[in-house]
Structure formats: C-alpha cells, structure tokens
C-alpha cells in the first residue's frame, strides 16, 4: 500500500448548502487523502448524500470551497466533476434500463467511439468489456440492462465509475453512496476486494448504513449529524458502538419521543387485517389496530412495508385476504373508498402526493374534506379560512397567512399542513410513511407531539418510521417485516421498549 501523500486528493472547506427550510450542510470540512478510503456515516437526513452531491457537482455550495489536489475548483456539473477525476455511484441507480451495458457505461462520452461520425458499437463493447472485467461481471456488454438483476445493475454502475480510471491520468476519486444496499454477501465481498485494489490508484469515499462494512473498508470515518460533521475517527481504533453513539448524539430518547404521553391502547379494534397478500409485495399479513395505538412497522427497503401501507390506504389493491373496519368487512379498491372509511395516508413523497404546492395553506388543508365547506353548491371561504387558522395555531405552522402558497413553506411546516388535512377530514386511522423525512429537528418534535395528540384523542396511527429509533420511540407495538412477511411482533410499552438489535435481527 502506498503511503498517503500530504496533499489531500479532495478537500472540502467550510461548505454550507441550504434548501428551503432545511440546512442540508452546515459548515462542513472534509478531506480524502490520496489512496485513502474514507467512511461517511450518519442517520437519514444527516447530510451525507448532500455532501457527495456537492463533491460530484450536482449541488453548488452556498458557501465554502472545494480543492482537488490542493487547487480550488468549481464543479458545475457531474460531467465537469468526471473530467476533474471524480466519479460517483448513486444510491438510486442511474442505469437506463433500455440501453445496453456498454451504452450505459459510456453514456455522454460516445464521442470517444466515433468512426466516420457514427458511434462504433464494436469499439464501445470492446472498451466496456475491459471495465466489466474490473468488477468481475461476466456479461456481454451488448446486453440490455433491463435484463440484469438489481445487483448486476449496481455492478454496472460501479464499472461506469471505474471507467474513469482508464481515461484520466491524474488522481481519481470515487464516491460510493450506499453501493451495497442491493448487493448479496458475495458481491459485497467482491466490491471490497475491488475497493482494496482500487486504493492503489484512487481515493474513495464510502457511505453505508451497515456500520460493520464501513469499519471493514475505511481508513478514517466521519460521522455526520444534522448537516454537520460531528466526529472524525481513525478507522483502526473505533467500534460500532462509538460510531452509533455519535450518529444519534442523544442519550435520552424518552423525552424526545414524548414517551410519557404514550397511551395504553383501548380494546376497540379500528382495523383488522387477516392474511393480506399481494403478489410480489407482501404475504399473509395479519394484525389488529386498536384505538389509541401507534403500530410501528420496521423493515428494510424491499420488505414490503411500503406496499402494505399503500394497500391499506387504497392506493393499490391486495390480491387475497380480508380487511375489517370497525367490525365491518371493507375492501379498498381506491383511495376514495379508504378515506370514506376514515383511513388516510401521509405519503413519503410530500411534494408529489402530500400536497398541491400551488395551493394556499387553507386550500390544501380542506382538500380531503371539501364537501364540509360547501353551502348551496358554493365554497364557504369564511368557514374554510377559520378552520385553517385554528389548525395553523394548533400545530404552530409558520406561515404568513392561511392564503400563502404552501410551496413556499419549509418542509416541516408543509408536513404539518398534510397532517392538518387528514385531521380536518376526520380520519380515524392515519398511516404515516416516513413522516419526518427531510424536516429539521424542531419540526420532527412537533410531529411527534402531534402523533401523541392523535392517539390520546382515540385515533390510531400506523408508522413507517424514518429511522429505527423513531419507530421504537413512538410505537406502542412494532411489527417487523422481511421479504414481504411479518417476521416478529414486539410490544413496546414505555420503559419496556425493544432495542434496535432486537428488531434488526428479524429485518435482515
């Protein structure tokens, strides 16, 4: 192994980046030395991906500077980053399924393969074969990516980043944003072998949720929290426990999640599911949801919990199984049917399904309950505004007026508008899909407070938390799902909560 040189391959000095309502990066400084693997860890929303996107030219920082090999640079686009020697493997895959493997690897760089003004497929496939060999992927470069498994696509994505190696003579830096989340154990080991090999020639930044993986490959580890770098570890003398403590940064969770207000659930069953199944999504899911209860559902991506939530809210239909609402057989074939039975969904994609950004706060709040604000066929604007005002006060929503455009509010305030919408519609069961995604800490606490308000009023909540910690802190009962099936169920009374380890062993 080469000794790391004194001038860092990549350095970030005091970088800040804000989005409306959220400071994604707050004065972050970060270096990757030559031939070094740097781990980057933190909870969801801590700013890891934002940092990598700044390094890859997707985001332009509001403040601070970037240095490559000690020289200040401005990266206006991923292409420019690529030409500077920085390539990124994304968390969400960027492979275009309809193109071939070779076309994907060299997307945007077709001019390298021109012959008489046309792209030479043969030459491109030849070059792609070289890149594929690096990741030990035994497929023909002319294969359409749609035919590949997710894991293979991920390897193609990595090959695409590695193609930088044969094109740039200077130092190269590879940014890996959760590259292992869809890989099998064997492929992860292969990836680690590639990283060890690549280290001789490149510098690497590595994001993963799996702390053991970060420990295994990293020379140094940065911990991020709420947009800041809170801790830097030398990779040799750190344990998973140390890392975890700094990621969370709070020892006392009890107050944060308002556990004192956790209600004992009543005997009244609001929804009962029996053997719900949907092909390719979930199988034989049964549970009873009682008034006053927060039912947490834990599971990794692909566990089927998102599909289950959407099915319960009428967005998709289940294939078999039964659903009872208040003891009556119910079948939710559409969203209106679910809302009519008092079931609402706060979606993870707030700006797509949660609210109409062009609508005013009042208009969004009454969207699911418009008939309540109609008199003689016309909208009753007075009643609407009054209702909106009372919820703005109650939920402490920061908006200039009920008539301000919702799109101009911060993420946290927008989320409160979505919650108010369902409260005004009078739902009995609210399904929260990542309710605190992308909102700041203060707004998160307001959302938690609101969840407690709802349960103490006899509503029931199904929670797909943003983090395990959140699921454990808020829920009175927790279902764990894996590969579409419920693998465990935990009672979670205040003071008797299961630990993350308890849940994780049933999740993976």
């Amino acid at each position, binding site marked *: 192994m080469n000794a790391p040189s004194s001038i860092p391959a990549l350095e970030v000095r005091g970088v800040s980046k804000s989005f409306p309502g959220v400071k994604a990066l707050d004065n972050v400084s970060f270096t990757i030395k030559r031939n070094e693997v740097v781990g980057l860890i933190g909870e969801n929303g801590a700013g890891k991906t934002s940092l990598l996107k700044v390094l890859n030219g997707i985001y332009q920082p509001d403040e601070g500077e970037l240095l490559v090999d000690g020289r200040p640079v401005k990266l206006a686009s991923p292409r420019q980053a690529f030409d500077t020697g920085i390539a990124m493997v994304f968390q969400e895959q960027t492979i275009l399924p309809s193109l071939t493997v070779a076309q994907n690897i060299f997307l945007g760089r077709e001019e390298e393969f021109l012959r008489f003004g046309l792209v030479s497929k043969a030459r491109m496939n030849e070059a792609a074969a070289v890149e594929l060999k690096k990741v030990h992927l035994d497929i023909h470069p002319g294969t359409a990516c749609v035919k590949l498994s997710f894991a293979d696509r991920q390897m193609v994505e990595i090959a695409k980043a590695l193609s930088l190696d044969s094109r740039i003579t200077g130092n190269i830096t590879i940014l890996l944003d959760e590259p292992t989340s869809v890989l099998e154990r064997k492929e992860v080991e292969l990836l680690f072998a590639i990283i060890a090999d690549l280290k001789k020639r490149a510098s690497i930044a590595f994001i993963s949720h799996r702390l053991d993986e970060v420990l295994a490959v990293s020379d140094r580890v940065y911990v991020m929290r709420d947009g800041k770098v809170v801790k830097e570890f030398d990779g040799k003398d750190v344990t998973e426990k140390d890392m975890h403590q700094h990621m969370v940064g709070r020892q006392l969770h009890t107050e944060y999640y308002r556990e004192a207000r956790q209600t004992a659930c009543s005997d009244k069953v609001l929804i009962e599911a029996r053997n719900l199944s949907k092909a390719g999504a979930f199988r034989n899911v049964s549970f009873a949801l009682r008034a006053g209860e927060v039912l947490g559902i834990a599971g990794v991506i692909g566990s089927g919990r998102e599909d289950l939530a959407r099915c319960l809210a009428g*967005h998709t239909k289940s294939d078999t199984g039964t659903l009872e609402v208040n003891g009556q057989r119910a079948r939710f074939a559409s*969203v209106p049917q679910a809302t009519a039975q008092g079931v*609402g969904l706060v979606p993870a994609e707030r700006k797509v399904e949660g609210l*109409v950004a*062009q609508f005013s706060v009042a208009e969004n709040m009454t969207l699911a309950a418009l008939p309540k*604000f109609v008199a003689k066929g*016309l909208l009753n604007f007075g009643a609407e505004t009054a209702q909106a005002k009372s919820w703005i006060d109650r939920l402490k929503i920061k908006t200039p007026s009920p008539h301000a455009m919702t799109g101009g509010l911060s993420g946290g305030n927008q989320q409160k508008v979505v919650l108010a919408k369902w409260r005004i519609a009078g739902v009995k069961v609210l399904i929260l899909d990542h309710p605190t995604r992308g909102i700041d800490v203060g707004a998160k606490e307001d959302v938690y407070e609101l969840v407690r308000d709802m349960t103490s009023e006899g509503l029931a909540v199904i929670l797909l938390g943003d983090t395990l910690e959140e699921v454990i802190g808020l829920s009175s009962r927790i279902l764990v799902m894996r590969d579409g099936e419920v693998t465990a169920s935990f009672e979670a009374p205040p003071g008797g909560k299961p630990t993350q380890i308890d849940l994780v062993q049933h999740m993976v």
Partner: protein
Amino acid sequence: MSKEWKERLHTYLPIVFLIVLVLLVGTYDPSFFSVGNFLTVTADTMTLFLMASGVTLVIMIGGIDLSIQAVASMASCILAAYLGRFGMWTIPLAVLGGAVAGLAGSLVSTRLRIPSFIATLAVSGVVLSAGYWFSDTRSINIPPDLSASYLSWAVGDTLGIPNEIWVGVVAMVVLSVLLQLTPFGRLIRGIGAQEQAVIASGINVDRIKIAAYVLSGTMAALAGVVMAARLGSGSPTLANEFLLPAIAAIIVGGTAITGGVGSVWRTFVGALIVQVVRIGMTFMGVSVFAQQIVFGVILVAAVAITLDRSKLLVVK
C-alpha cells in the same frame, strides 16, 4: 424582479397588450374608435370565445381538447338540419351532441388511460363524419322565418347590445362562478397543479376530468349554434380554422398550457386580442389565408413569454 411583480405582470399583461393593439389599429383607422364598432368587434369575437371557454377548463387540468372545431361544425349541422322538424328543441339537441362528444373523449382518456391529445383527436374524426352524416355532406340553409322564431336570442339586439355579447357574458359569468367559487373549480386547479396529491386526498379525479371535457364539448356546440344562427346556415366545415385561434386565445389570455393556472375571463381577453389582431391584419391587407401563420406565431410567442421554461426539466 420580485415574484409578486412577475405574477402581477402575468395577470395584467394580456389586458395591456389588448389596449395597445386597439390603440394601434385605431391610429391606423380612426373610424375604429366608436362604441358601435367596439360592440360589433366584441359580438364578432363571441363565437371564438364560446369555443375557447370550455377548453380553458380542459387546459387547466393539463389536458387538451382537439375536437372543438369538429364539434361546433356538427352542432351547426344538427341545428340547420332539424330546426324545421323539432323547432326550439333542436338547440338543446345540438348542444347535447357536443356534450356527448366531450363525454366520449373523456371516457376514452380516463378509462383507457390514453392521453387526451390522442383521445380527442380520434373523437374529432368521428364527430366530423357525424357532421357530414347529419348534413348529408352539404351546407344547409336556415330559412329566415325559422331563424326569426327560434334563433333571435343569438342574433338580435337587447338594450342596444348585440345578443351574441349577452350570450358570451352569461357563459363567462356561469363558467367563472363554477371555476372560482365551487369545489369543482378548486379541484380543476388542483388536478392541473398536482394531480397525484388530489388523488391521494381521496378525490375521484376521473369524475372531475369527465365533467371538464363535457363542458368543453357543450361550449363548443353552443359556439356552433351561435355561428349557424349568425351565418344563417350549418355546414360540416363551418368551424374549420377555429381550433388554432381558440387555443391561441386561451394561451394569450394567460392560462398556463401546463395546467393549474387560468381563468375564463382571461380567455375572454385572449379572444378579443385574437380578434383585434385579425382586424388589424385585414386593415393592413394581410390575406385571410396567411392569417393562420400569424396565429401560429402568436401562440408560440405567448407560450414562450408566459411559461417559465427554465423550470421544465424535459419538453415532449
């Protein structure tokens, strides 16, 4: 420029543009400035406005209705062919024909999940043939005595103002109330701005969409009836060359082609702009056949000015 100012400009620019155009034409021909002439110009604009008024709702939900000119022509044929037989009842019959065409297009679009562009283009073909069938492929004259007994509401004068204007104003008021003051109008805006959020709020979006297309067909048919009343005849090609000016009127008035933003009074202003441009061109000796070129240019220019294209990620 602040966002608020931009919005204000967006609202008032069409009115300012209309006033400038009127002044321009007026300096070219001073006889243009007279109450009588203004009333004539406005009355001449009403068929175009009626055609465009219903499509405004469709464009606001982010769709398009390409069948309106065929629908208007068919309505004129139904009116002219059956006025002698059914009398007053022919008028609701002709308008109903338009509503059915709108219903057909919307059912194809919502049930079969086919883009409205294709669905209404296909319906347009069917409706065109229906027009030929009703009229036996000919232009049909409406005898003056029938016109006098059944169509005077559309062509005469009331209180010194041409009846076309009364019809247009009533249509504008009714549609504006529907759009601004009812849940239906609220949902039209919501669907255009962010359809998925409206669906996720438990609203039967298809029903709202179908209603919008039915209104569009209804208003186009009403336009065809008024057109036939004014011309004294119905023909399967009566409203040809009306589609482009109608869409131009909507967009020039400031209704966003991407949906979510718009109003019927904007379309009223837009229709007047199109009409004044047409008169201006006639004054300047631009051939009638070349005028469609100008409408094409105006349409592109209006979209280019009103649309914040930097926010569009892709254009298809």
